C-alpha cells in the first residue's frame, strides 16, 4: 500500500489530466510491479517525446527520435506501440508496450502461477517479436512477410534470389504443419533454445 500511495504525489501533476490517478497507476503497476522511480522517469521521457503536449504520442512523435530512423525495424516497432486502428498512444499504452521488455525477476518466477500472465513473460516477449513480422495479423508469418523483414535487415548486397532462398529456408526450418508459413506455435518452438528472457529484456533503471 505504501508503494502505491507514496508515488501518488509525484505523479499527480502529470497524470490527473485525463484519467483518475488510481486507474492509471494501478493498471501500470499491474504490469510493472516496480517502484515508482521507473514510472516517473518514463513519464518524463513520455512528456518530452510528446511534442503536441496533449498527453498522447503520435507516430510523428516517435519518428522524431533520430536513432529510430536508422533502425531497420524502427517503423515496425513504432507500429507496435499503437493499438489496432489508432494513431495515438497514451502513457498507459506506452508503458504497456514497454512492459514487455522488463526483465523477469527471480521472485516473479514463483509467484502467482494462476494469475494472468505478466506482460514480460517469455511468451509475451516472443509474441511481441512475432507481431513485428506478422503484418496482416493472421497469426502466421508468410513468406512475403518474412521477405520484407529480411530485406530490411540485410544490406543491399544480398540479391533478391539469395534473400528468397534464405526466406524459403527459414520457413522450411520452422514449418511443421506444411503450410509454408510460420505460426506462432512454430515460432516459439524454433526459438525454444534461445534465451529469450535475456535477449528481450532491458534494464530500464537500476
Amino acid at each position, binding site marked *: 500500500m505504501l508503494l502505491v500511495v507514496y508515488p501518488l504525489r509525484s505523479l499527480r501533476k502529470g497524470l490527473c489530466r485525463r484519467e483518475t490517478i488510481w486507474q492509471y497507476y494501478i493498471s501500470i503497476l499491474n504490469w510493472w510491479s516496480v517502484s515508482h522511480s521507473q514510472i516517473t522517469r518514463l513519464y518524463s521521457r513520455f512528456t518530452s517525446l510528446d511534442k503536441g503536449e496533449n498527453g498522447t504520442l503520435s507516430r510523428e512523435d516517435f519518428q522524431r527520435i533520430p536513432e529510430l530512423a536508422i533502425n531497420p525495424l524502427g517503423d515496425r516497432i513504432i507500429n507496435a506501440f499503437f493499438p489496432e486502428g489508432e494513431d495515438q498512444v497514451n502513457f498507459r499504452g506506452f508503458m504497456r508496450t514497454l512492459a514487455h521488455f522488463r526483465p523477469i525477476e527471480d521472485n516473479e518466477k514463483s509467484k502467482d502461477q494462476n494469475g494472468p500472465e505478466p506482460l514480460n513473460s517469455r511468451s509475451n516477449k516472443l509474441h511481441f517479436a512475432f507481431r513485428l513480422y506478422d503484418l496482416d495479423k493472421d497469426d502466421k508469418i508468410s513468406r512475403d512477410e518474412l521477405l520484407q523483414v529480411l530485406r530490411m535487415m540485410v544490406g543491399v548486397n544480398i540479391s533478391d*534470389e539469395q534473400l528468397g532462398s534464405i526466406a524459403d529456408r527459414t520457413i*522450411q526450418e520452422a514449418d511443421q504443419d*506444411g503450410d509454408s508459413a510460420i505460426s506462432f506455435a512454430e515460432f516459439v518452438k524454433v526459438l525454444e533454445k534461445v534465451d529469450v528472457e535475456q535477449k528481450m529484456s532491458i534494464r530500464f533503471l537500476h
Partner: protein
Amino acid sequence: MPQPLANVCSTFVPEQTDGKRCWHQGCQEGVLQLVSPQAGGSAGHSASRVFHLSRKVTSIVPESCLLILLGLVLGGIVLAVAKKAEYQLEPNMFFLFLLPPIVLDSGYFMPSRLFFDNIGAILTYAVVGTLWNSFATGTALWGLHRAGLMDPGVEAGLMDFLLFGSLISAVDPVAVLAVFEEVHVNETLFIIVFGESLLNDAVTVVLYKVFNSFVELGPAHIHATDYVKGVASFFLVSLGGTAVGLLFAFLLALITRFTKRVRIIEPLFVFLLAYVAYLAAEMVSLSSILAVTFCGICCKKYVEANISQKSRTTVKYTMKTLASSSETIIFMFLGISAVDTSKWAWDTALVLGTLFFILLFRAVGVVLQTHVLNRFRLIPLDRIDQVVMSYGGLRGAVAFALVILLDREKVKAKDYFVATTIVVVFFTVIVQGLTIKPLVTWLKVKRSDHHKPTLNEELHEHAFDHILAAVEDIVGHHGYHYWRDKWEQFDKKYLSQLLMRKSAYRLRDEIWDVYYKLNIRDAISFADQGGHVLSAAKLALPSMPSRTSMSESSVTNLLRESGSGACLDLQVIDTVRSRRDKEDAAMHHVLRGSLYKPRRRYKASYSRHFISPDKQERQDKEIFRQNMKRRLETFKSTKHNVCSSKSKARLKEKGRKKKNISLTKETPNGKTQRNIPWQEAAPVLVMVSSEEEESDSSETEREDDEGIVFIARATDEVLQGKTTPGSLDVCPSPCIIPPSPTLAEKELPWKGDQADLAVYVSSETTKIVPVDMQKAWNQSISSLESIASPPGTESGPQHRRFVCPVLEEGRPQSASHVTPEQSSCFQFPSHISRSGRSQSDSSPDGPEQQELQPLMATEEQGRMPPTVEPRRLMFHRASHL
C-alpha cells in the same frame, strides 16, 4: 630404481597421446626421450596395458593434472639419475615463448559477443577481485606471521607478504582454460571466470612490480607519492596494454587487406603481429597479456574476412597447436620444477595458511562482488554460479614464474614462497581440477548445450537486437544496446570499410553466413546419402517419396525438391576450392566466392581443442565427389545438368581465355563485350580441340556459344561467316519450325515460376563440381556423350542445337529456358539488322543470366554465357572423342 619408475612413467604417456590432442605425443615423447632415455624401452609393452584405461582416466582426470604428475615423475627420474635437478620452468622462457601462444589463442577464439556482453562483470572480478585477494591474502598471512604461527626462518615483512599475495592471488588463464574446457559449464559462467583470468594480468603485473620495488626499496624509503604512482601505473599498464593490442589489431587487419597476391604469408602476419604486440607491450612494461588478448579479439573479425580460406585454416590449426603445445610444456615443467628440493623451504603454517586464505578470500570476494553486480545484471548470477566461480579460481604457471623471478637477496623468504606457490598451484590444479567436475554435476550447474545456430535463431536474434535498440531509443535510456548499436554502425561505416577488402565487405552479412553454413551441412548430408534420400527431418518436404526412385527423378528435380538450399551449397563447396586452386582466375572467384565466404565468427563457445565444422567438411567433400561421379554415370536423364555443369569449368577459364581471344582478334563490330568471345571462338575451336583437357573443354564451349552469335551475324557479316561455313548453315536450318511453336508456348513459363526455378536449379547444379573434380567430370561426361551423341551426329551439325530440346521434351522446365535463345536465333533472319542482332545478344541472355547466376556478382553477369551452351558442348565433345 629407474626401472619401476620408467614403468610408471610409461603408463602416463599413452593416456595422453591417444586422445584428441595427439600432437602432444611429439612433444611429450620428446621430453621423455630427452629426460629419461631408459623409459623409452619399457614404454612399449606397458602401453598396451593402459591403453584401454586411458579413456576412462582422461574422462575423470583433467589433462593438466596428468601432465603435472607426469612432470613430477620425469623430474624424479632426472633427480634420481643426475642427482640434481637439471630442468626448470624458466620465467623468461615462460613469458616470452610459452605464454603468448596460449593468450593469443584464447583472445583470437574468444566469443567476442559473449565477452563484451559480460565485460562489466569480467572487469569487476578481474580488477576489484584481484586487488581484494592480493591485499587480503597478504595481510592475513602477515597477521599469521606476526602471531608467531610461522617458522621464525620466514623473514618477511608486510611488503613481502603483500608481494607474495599479489602473485599468488591471480587466477591463472592457462589453468582455468585447461580445467574449464573439460567441464563444459554454461557460456556465461565460463566467460566470466576465463575473462577474469585473462584481464587480471594487468592488476597482477602492476601489483607485483609495485610491491617488488617497495620490497627492494625497503619499507623505510617509501613515500606517499610512491603509492600514488602505483595507482597511476595500474591505469597506465592496463590501458596502455589494451591500446597496444588495439593498435596492432588495427595494423594486422589493415595489412591482411592487401595480401591478396601473397596469400601464403597471411598466417605469418597474424602470428607475427600478435607476437610483436606482445613483445612491444612487454618491452615498455605494459600488460602484455592484455595487449595480445585484445589484439586477438579485435582483429579477428576483419582478418577472417580478409584472408583466404586456406590461411584461415592454417591460422586456426597452428594457433591451436601452438597453444596446446605450450600448455603441455608448461604443466610438464611445473611438475619437473617441483622436484627441485634445493629451492624449497617448507613451512607448514605458511602453506596451510596460504591455501586456506586464498580459498576463503576468493569465496568472500566472489560473493560480495556478485551481490553488487547482480543489482545491475539482467540475469543475476545465482548461488551455484558463485560456488563454481569461487572454486574455479585456479592458480598456475604465471604465479610460479613470478615467484621464481623474485630476487633472493631482496626477498629473504623466497624459498618459502616458492615452496608455497608450488603447493598452491598443485593443489588448485590437481585437487580442485579433479573435483570441479563432480561438483558441477552435483550442483547441477547449467551446462552449455551445443547446437548449431539455425537460420531462424539467427534471424530472430538479430531482430531482437534491433528491437531492443529501438526500445532503448524510445525510452531514452542509453544502455548497453544503445552503445552496441552505435558501435555497429560505426564499424559498418568506417572500420569495416577501412579494414576489409571490398569484396569481403560488400558481401558480409551474418544472416547470410548462417544460411551458408546450413547449406553446406545439408549439401554434405545430401551427398552423403548418395542423393537418394534427403533426410526428411532436415528438409521436411512433402515431395519426399519421389526422391526414393532415382531412375525417375533427375538430379535437377532432386535439387529442386530439396529446395534451393541444396543447390546453393553445392556451389559453395566448389567456390571454396576453386578459389584457392586458381590464382589466375582469382578475380572471378573472389567475386563469386566471397558471397559464401565462410566466416566462423559465430563460435558459440571457446574451445581450444575442437574445430568441429572443418574436419567434417573435408572428408565429406570426398564422399561428395565419389557420389557425384556415381550419380552422373547412373542418371542419364540428368544429362542436361551434367552438361551445364560444364559451364562451371568454363567459368573458371573464362577470364583467362577471354583475354587471349580479345587480343588475337579485332572484329569490326566487337562493340559489345559479350560478342567477342563467341565470335572469335569459332576459328580457334577447331585448332584447339586437340589441346590439353582444360582448354579443350573451354574452347568447345565457346564454339557452342559462337553458334548462337553466328546465326545473328550471318546476314550482316559475311566476312566472319565464311570462316565457319558450318555454323552459317545453321541459320537457315529447317529447324525453324519446331522452335517457333515452342517459343509461343514457353514464353510464358519462362517468365513463370516454374521455368524460373528450373533455370535456377540447373545453373546451380553446375556448381556441384569442385575444380579438382574436373577430370572425373570429363570422364563421366564423355561416357554420357557416347550415349547421347547419336541423334546429334546423325542430324548433322546444323541440328546439333536442337537435339537437346528434343531430348528434354519430357521436362518442360528445362526446355523452357532453351526456347528463348532459339527463338531469338531464328527470328534474326527475318529482321536483318544490326540492332536486331545486338538485341539477340543481350535480350535473351540478360534475364537468363540473372536467373542462371543469381549468386554472381554483377560484374560477372555480363560475361556469363547462357546455360544452353554447355549443353551443346557435349555433342561437340563427343565428336572429338
